């Protein structure tokens, strides 16, 4: 699924990484617990989280995750965006709850990791 299609499906807004809208992701993982994110072996996934702080970006960097959706209408802080931009990561802000965001993406064909 292309990032630009994800934007349309979840009514998302790009906060960082406009140059990567044609990137494709195969799977999605939703969590607010960063240690859970660090257990994943899968590559090329989009992380859906309501945790909008610098540790989200660091965790994604460590876990080789380049695409992050901030659900629950969370907004990226300038600090978060500066780090994401340095890492060339895509940050999407989404107005919907995590449940609805996941539901929309799953319904559109984004696969679960497990």
């Amino acid at each position, binding site marked *: 699924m292309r990032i630009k299609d994800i934007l349309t499906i979840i009514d998302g807004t790009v906060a960082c990484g406009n140059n990567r809208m044609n990137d494709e992701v195969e799977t999605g993982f939703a969590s607010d617990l960063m240690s*859970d994110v660090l257990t994943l072996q899968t590559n090329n996934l989009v992380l859906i989280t309501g945790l909008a*702080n610098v540790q989200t970006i*660091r965790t994604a960097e*460590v876990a*080789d995750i380049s695409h992050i959706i901030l659900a629950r209408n969370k907004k990226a802080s300038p600090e978060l965006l500066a780090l994401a931009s340095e890492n060339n990561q895509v940050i999407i802000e989404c107005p919907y709850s995590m449940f609805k965001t996941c539901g929309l993406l799953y319904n559109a064909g984004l696969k679960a990791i497990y």
Partner: protein
Amino acid sequence: MHFTYLITGGNFTHAGHASSQVKRILKQLNVNPVTIKRIVVALYEAEVNVVAHAYRGNIDVDIEPERVLVLITDEGPGIADIELAMKEGYSTASPKVREMGFGAGMGLSNMKKNSDKLIIQSQVGQGTHVELTTFLTQ
């Protein structure tokens, strides 16, 4: 090759900075991406633990052709029961740590899963010493 990083307890803004630097170095050295991820995940969990629980700490990274050795030494409250602390779900983290997305009692087990050898020594009231070894030749 040897690198040293300082960690300040409680400073969540910089938590993960050292792990990020180590990741870049290992990438430059063309280490296998799967191995890099294992080393950096284990190191990051350790780094977050120092920020979350200790007053200050050091990370020493020693890279040799056959293995990467990471030593994390902190001054802090120490761990009274290491066996208990290794159990998934056991945590003494503060609400502040949980707000950062950690503190679910998975840190030590994630470190164990992502290293070939894990040694933890701790003295209550003084601090904790962690050794993470990852072999590059396997």
